């Protein structure tokens, strides 16, 4: 009887089960990790990776919104991370004397990072979303590189008169007691490490809530309709630009918050950290986890961040092994023969259930 009910679930119910399953998994892992930390049975290298893993999970889930749900390949996601990191850290450093609570300053940093990244996403979205396919991909790549070179040449300082900015060389002319925050290619140095694992966990949860609610809303269904067939979606009266922009800006804002979280876990951060390779790294998480599958992104981001560390014993060979694993996984998951076997297995199972 229960099984029969289970089979008659509507698609909407299935997706909502999937969301709650994902929330449950994330909360469970968080509690497990907290337990391990308090009992002291966690290695220091894994402990140091917890916050980057949270940031990468948020990056992967937000990129999955663009690539999996909106269906546009973005090769410049690290650019938004960079915007969030630099603006968020600047806000946190500038408010160091005003706001004394670390948690509140972190929150302000994350929000500022998200707002600026959303704004960058909006500006970039205007030209980008007019293009299609590989051309769109190359333009997002170009924007990622432009953002990198802007932050590599940006100087921002703070003194009692407020923030000062200049490009190319340090012309901020700070007054006595002033402090240079962003130092061009030197990036930001002397950041207070105020990111915490709990904050990372909360950010992951907020991201999941935002993404799942967007995907399961009217707007989300519209976005997926545009992905599946733009012309059909347009002909039933959907505003394609508006919905594409919604997805793109949401994705950028979440990436910005992730960037701020990531940056405030290190004492220095440079613009070159957020380059093309980082964008690709996150794209790898999304594709390996499965397009449109948020839990997959979470698992892939976690596993692939831990993998190079776990391969430490291979020392020099670890990146080589990483590359080979990547290729083999792609070859196996896309092998037509294996797929056939899986499909047979699946139909067999279903038939078995029906016979019961």
């Amino acid at each position, binding site marked *: 009887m229960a099984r029969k009910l289970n089979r008659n679930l509507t698609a909407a119910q299935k997706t909502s089960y999937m969301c709650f399953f994902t929330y449950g998994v994330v909360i469970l892992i968080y509690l497990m990790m907290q337990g391990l930390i308090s009992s002291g049975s966690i290695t220091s290298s894994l402990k140091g990776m917890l916050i980057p893993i949270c940031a990468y999970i948020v990056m992967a889930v937000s990129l999955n919104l663009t690539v999996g749900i909106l269906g546009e390949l973005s090769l410049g996601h690290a650019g938004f991370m960079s915007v969030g990191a630099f603006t968020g850290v600047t806000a946190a450093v500038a408010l160091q004397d005003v706001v004394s609570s670390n948690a509140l300053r972190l929150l302000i940093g994350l929000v500022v990072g998200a707002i600026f990244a959303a704004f960058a996403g909006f500006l970039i979205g205007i030209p980008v979303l007019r293009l299609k396919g590989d*051309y769109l991909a*190359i333009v997002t790549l170009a924007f990622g590189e432009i953002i990198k070179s802007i932050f590599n040449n940006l100087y921002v300082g703070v003194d009692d008169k407020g923030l000062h900015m200049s490009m190319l060389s340090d012309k901020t002319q700070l007054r006595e007691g002033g402090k240079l925050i962003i130092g061009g290619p030197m990036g930001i140095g002397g950041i207070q490490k105020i990111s915490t694992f709990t904050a990372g966990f909360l950010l992951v949860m907020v991201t999941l809530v935002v993404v799942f609610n967007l995907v399961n809303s009217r707007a989300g269904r519209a976005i997926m309709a545009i992905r599946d067939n733009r012309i059909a979606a347009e002909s039933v009266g959907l505003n394609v630009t508006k919905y594409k922009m919604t997805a793109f800006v949401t994705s950028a804002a979440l990436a910005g918050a992730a960037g701020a979280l990531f940056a405030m876990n290190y004492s220095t951060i440079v613009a070159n950290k957020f380059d093309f390779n980082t964008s690709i790294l996150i*794209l790898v998480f999304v*594709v390996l986890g499965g397009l449109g599958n948020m839990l997959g992104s979470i698992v892939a981001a976690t596993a692939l961040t831990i993998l190079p560390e776990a391969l430490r014993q291979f020392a*020099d060979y670890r*990146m*080589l092994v*990483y590359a080979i694993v*990547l290729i083999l996984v792609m*070859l196996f998951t896309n092998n037509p023969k294996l797929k056939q076997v899986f499909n047979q297995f699946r139909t067999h199972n279903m038939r078995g259930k029906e016979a019961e």
Partner: protein
Amino acid sequence: MTFLNFLISGISLGSIYAIIALGYTMVYGIAKMLNFAHGDVIMVGAYVCFFAVARYDLPPALGVLLAMFVCTMLGIVIERLAYKPLRQAPSLAVLITAIGVSYLLQNGAQLLWTSSPKVFPNFFKVADQTGVKLFDGQLNISYVTMVTIAACVIIMLALTWFTGKTKMGKAMRACSEDKGAAQLMGINVNATISMTFAIGSGLAAIAGVLLCSAYPTLVPTTGSMPGIKAFTAAVFGGIGSIPGALLGGLLLGVIEIFAKAYISTQLSDAVVFGVLIIVLLVKPAGLLGKQVREKV
């Protein structure tokens, strides 16, 4: 005169980009995939030539031929092992595999040849002079520049002839238009795709040698940035089009050198990519690309 100097070095850099972009554009045209590992094939070519000439004292010409041979083989092997099984797979899966191959080549090179930079020798000397000086030394043209531009022109003419006149070239064009129909006409599609990879990778070896002759530091990541730039150039000119790769490469090189000279060295990349975005907004399929109209 300085303007002319900049223009010439821009054209020279652009020629290198154009040769690399040809590899991208041909592979894209026929296999509809972005071969991210192409930039690293350039690096392998440069290393092979470096070791052949600097370690084993082979004559430079033989070194270049050896590099071309190794890269051609490498291209065929990569295609056979990594890309061919994914012919029916979604394009993102192929893209990630290409990225995997790129990591593999970079890290393999790091293991084999370490990450310490090698100084690439300059082959192009006549009587210990690296170039000619014109107008009382105001205009410098190095031999590397001349060879690069000449190589680019020769390659371009040869490829135009090859794709237009030979049987294999016609097969390539047929495959890029419609693989199924080409197969029905008795064209061996797999062999044609392998051939495309072979040609693209062979050209990458030449590009690698020319690139490292002009900018002589050789490290395992040498190929990645020129690879991205050349890919941009291919899109700039209209991906899939051979004259487009030439035009895109040349323009990109000239813009980069001018931006370095007249705007700012640090911001040159931003200027290059900014121009690309503006061009794509006006012409969404690149300069010489064909706009494919969607049929409903």
